Each structure stands twice: as structure tokens, then as C-alpha cells.
């Protein structure tokens, strides 16, 4: 039986892939292993039980903060997604349809949040919106508004890029003109024609927003020093406990991976429809 000779280029590619995977997976595996060693000499899920059923940073009192902080951050993420869709989708649509020469300008502005350190943005928001005429930090709702606004700006590179990519996959101009020739106004066009064709893009953007929002620490901690946000909660657990932070890390990764799997699942189902409409 002839032995298949491995191409040196292919072999090199596999070596690089394995090394990169190892660079990502090995720390996760060590974290997971560490999270199982809460009970001496035995592998157990005690650290997970501690996180999910007690308050490891508060001597086990009250409703586990894992749930309250996750709920709070999920709520903030939900409103961030809503605001992002309301602003980004019409903006990206208008740029694609009416003023395509502004695309480079939009590309520049939407990546600015990457260039500005989070702490700088945080102090900027606080200084601007805690002072008159806004004075938003005087109320909890106002403070939450700043947090949502900050998240919206922070995730803008992802949401704009996802929506813009989705729009490039469809013939925005012709679909818009077809809809207008059939009597549709702008609201109908966005709601009935554009948005349904951006399902995957909007879902991708939403799940990315969720993943970022639940892990964000700087802005959340400055605005809510009682550490009610999930990122702040994780940091508090990390300060006070030994094995529970590792368990929290694994749980957070699992949440993000679920988001990615959902995106892939939905994208696979919609790819065929969009591919057929591409001209």
C-alpha cells in the first residue's frame, strides 16, 4: 500500500494551526482543570456550585449575584442592541443607498472606539453627562442611559461592520427602487425589505454586543460602583476567591460560544437564500 506523501506546505500549515490552537486551548484547559480542584485531592464541580448557588464574594448571603449581575448586564445589552439597530441599520442603509461616497468616512468613524482607550471614553462620558445640562448620573435610569450609550459606541465597530457587510450582500439600490415603485415609503422599505434580509447580520451584531456587554468592566464599574454589572461581579469574585474565578471564566466562555454557535446555525440557514439573490 502506497503511503501518501505530505506536502511540506500543508505540513507547515498544520503545525501553525496546532500551535495557535494550543495557545488558545491550553490556558482554557488549565483554567478548567483548576476550577475542578476546589475540594482537596478530588476533582469536583464545587467551584461551579459555589458560583451558581451562593454569593462567593459575600460569604454566601442572599440571591446569588451571578444571576442578578447577569440579568442586569443582559438588560443593558438588550437596550444597547435595540439602540444600535435603531441607529446603525438606517444609517448604514442610507450610506449604502444614497451616499456611498461617505463609506470611507463611516468606516473611519466606526473604528474610532478601537483607537480610544476605554478609560478615556469612560472619563469623557462621566465628565460630560454628569454635569449640567444633562446631569444624568443623578438618577439610576440616567446612569443606565450613559452605560447603554457607552456600550452602543463601544460595539459600533462590530455592529456597523456586520450590518454593512449584510447590506453589501444584497442589491440595496434595486430592491429599494422596486419597493418604492410598488408604493412603499421609507419605513416600509426598512421594516419589510431591508431588515428581513439583514437577519443574520443583525443577529451577529446582537450576539457580539451581548458578549461584549456582559464582560465589560471599566464603564460599568465607574457608573455602578456597587458592582451590579456582570463584569464588575467577576472582578469582585476574582479579588476574594481562589477557585470560583476559574469557574466563572469557563462559564463566561461557554456563554460566548453558545452565542457563536447560534450565529453559525442561523447563518447556515440563510446563506442559501442570500446567495441566490446576489447579482
Amino acid at each position: 500500500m502506497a503511503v501518501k506523501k505530505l506536502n511540506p506546505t500543508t505540513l507547515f500549515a498544520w503545525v501553525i494551526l496546532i500551535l495557535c490552537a494550543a495557545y488558545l486551548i491550553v490556558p482554557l484547559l488549565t483554567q478548567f482543570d483548576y476550577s475542578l480542584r476546589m475540594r482537596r485531592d478530588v476533582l469536583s464541580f464545587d467551584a461551579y456550585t459555589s458560583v451558581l448557588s451562593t454569593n462567593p464574594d459575600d460569604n454566601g448571603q442572599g440571591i446569588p449575584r451571578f444571576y442578578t449581575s447577569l440579568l442586569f448586564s443582559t438588560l443593558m445589552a438588550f437596550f444597547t442592541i435595540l439602540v444600535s439597530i435603531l441607529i446603525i441599520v438606517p444609517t448604514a442603509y442610507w450610506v449604502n443607498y444614497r451616499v456611498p461616497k461617505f463609506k470611507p468616512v463611516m468606516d473611519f468613524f466606526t473604528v474610532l472606539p478601537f483607537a480610544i482607550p476605554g478609560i478615556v471614553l469612560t472619563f469623557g462620558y462621566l465628565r460630560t453627562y454628569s454635569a449640567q445640562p444633562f446631569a444624568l448620573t443623578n438618577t439610576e435610569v440616567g446612569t443606565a442611559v450613559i452605560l447603554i450609550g457607552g456600550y452602543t459606541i463601544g460595539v459600533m465597530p462590530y455592529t456597523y461592520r456586520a450590518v454593512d457587510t449584510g447590506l453589501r450582500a444584497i442589491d440595496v439600490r434595486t430592491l429599494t427602487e422596486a419597493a418604492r415603485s410598488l408604493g412603499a415609503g421609507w419605513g416600509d422599505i426598512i421594516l419589510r425589505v431591508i431588515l428581513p434580509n439583514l437577519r443574520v447580520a443583525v443577529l451577529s451584531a446582537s450576539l457580539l454586543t451581548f458578549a461584549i456587554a456582559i464582560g465589560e468592566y471599566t464603564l460599568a464599574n465607574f457608573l455602578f460602583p456597587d458592582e451590579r454589572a456582570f463584569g464588575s461581579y467577576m472582578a469582585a469574585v476574582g479579588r476574594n476567591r481562589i477557585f470560583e474565578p476559574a469557574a466563572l471564566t469557563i462559564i463566561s466562555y461557554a456563554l460566548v460560544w453558545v452565542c457563536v454557535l447560534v450565529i453559525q446555525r442561523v447563518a447556515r440557514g440563510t446563506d442559501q437564500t442570500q446567495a441566490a439573490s446576489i447579482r
Partner: protein
Amino acid sequence: MAFLELSNLHKAFGPTTAVENFDLDVQRGEFVSFLGPSGCGKTTTMRMVAGFETPTQGSIKIDNAEITGVPPNKRNVGMVFQSYALFPHMSVSDNIAFGLKIARKPASEIHQRVSDMLALIKMQALGNRYPHQLSGGQQQRVALARAIAIRPQVLLLDEPLSALDAKIRLELRNEIRAIQQQLGITTIYVTHDQEEAMSLSDRVVVMCEGRMEQVGTPFEIYNFPRTAFVASFVGTLNVLHGTLQEAAGDRVLIEGLPPGAMIRLARTLPGGRAGEGVIVNLRPEAVQIGSPATHDPTPVEHDNVLPAVIEQITFLGSVVRVKLRVGTQHLLADLFNNPSLVLPKLGEKVTIRFSPDACRIL
């Protein structure tokens, strides 16, 4: 009074004039094609009627109502696009129903209208399919049904068959015309395909560089072209260079031929000077081929007769195209194909004959 009036339409994009001095009256139920090469302004003119371009100057009226400043979604003008533009997330039925739902028609009316449209395009069983599950021809039928479903005052078709293969194009072309005639919708059709324009239209508007070159029935456009562009763009055209023999005369000496080989025009050229260069245009089907050795049993008096040599014979199916050398120039002759046709031989010396009425000076 015309149903659709386009008056002195002018459209400029910055320093570039896309359409100028466009005047056209279209009667109710008429099928008019805009024909011309790419960049001639036909699509721009159509888009002004649809409302997607605003005229720099001029006005558009439908049924005596001014619509120049009316937004596209208020004009009740249906449009079919070259790329079909079906909504990919909607089924065939939903695509057809779209305009009716936007207009908030009752559900029962929408249902009935969609059924009627599916029957019209013979796709009753395909209402639940999605665009990606349809062929190109089927998609274009759905696009047509969608545009017609809203009962538009005017139907616009922007090169709807360009993306289809030849056989489907032919089938769909006939269907479009049949549907248009059945429903009596005033229709504007944009195409660069002269065969499409000629076979579908009540009238054809030939355009070049933003201007109307000629408007007329297909018969008029083809047989009586008013400009050299129309003559050369519509159909095939022979061009023979010669000189006018006498002032305001009707006899032309063709270049490269002996002085005896003059041709006579159907009428004199008032204003023509003796010795002036003249271009004689002639359709290939007007040229008949004979042999000097054969006695033509039906000589037609006053026909022009010239000596020629066979250079090339091309079989085009129903037509056999023969390329001849006439002096130093070339000329095409189209012969109707039939099994008993005796084809000339390459290099054979022949005579060609054509009526003075077939000669055009443009």
C-alpha cells in the same frame, strides 16, 4: 390628448448631459420602446418617468396630471428591472402581494389578485416557492406579475430580458406583449436589442447620446430611417460612397467602378452639387444577385445594375448573407434561404440589382 406626456425633458449630471430635448406623447394602451446603444439616455429617461431621477428641465404628465415632482411611491407606475429585484425573503405569492399590502387592500382582494396574477403568468403551482428556487425566466415573470398586480397607470420595463438566454428571451418577449395587450397597460420598454424593440412595439424611439433620433412604427424606423445613425443602428446597412454626377441630379457614380456603372436614386437631390461626395445607403435584402451569363427572366425597368464579385457566403439560418466586392467597395446581400436556392460560388462574377427606391441618402 396623450395619456403619458414627456415634454422637453432634460437631464444633466453635472457637466454631462444625459438627456436633452426629449418630447414624446404616448397614447393609452400603447407599447413604446426606447432603443439605443449603452449610454444613450434611454434608462435615464425611463427613470425620470418612474421618479428615480428628477428632470433638470421639462415635465411629465400622466392622464393630464403633472407628476414631475411626485415621489416614486406615489406615482402608481409599475417597474420591472433587469435584475428582477424580487425580494429574496418573500415567496412568489408574497412578492406579488407586496404592493397590495402596502396599499392596505383587504385580505380577500389581495388573495384574489395574487391568484389572478399567478394564473396570468402560468405559475399557479409555484406560489410558495422562493426566488432562489426559480429559473431566470420564472423570476422575471414574477417580477412582471408583481408590477402589474398594483394596476399601474404606466408599466416600465428596463431591459427585462437582458439577463436571460436567447430561447427564454424569445418566449418571454411574446408573453410580455400578449399580457400587455390583454390588459391594455401603457408600457415603456427600454432595450438595446433592436429585434426586441421592433417585434414588441407599437412605436420605437431611437436614441443616441441623449437625443431622440427618430420616433415611428417599427416599419417606419426600419424602412425610412431619417438619420445615418438610425439607419445603421436598426438593421444592417450597406454603405456605398460615390459622387453626384450633376447638380441637383439623381445619378451617382460609385467609387471604384467604371463611369458607365452609375446608379440612379429614387429622386433628385435638391441643393446637391456636381462632383459632391454622396453616401448611398441600402438594406441587404434589397439587393438581388444575378449572373451575367443568366438571362434574368424578370428584369425590372429602372433597377440599378452593377457588376460584383462574390467574396464570402455566410449561412444564418433563414437568411444567407453574401458579401460582394463592388469595385473597391463591399456590399452585403441577404437571400431568403430555401432548399432549392442555388448559391453562388466564391470568386464568381455576378451582377447585383436593386431598386432606386431602396437607396437612401442620409
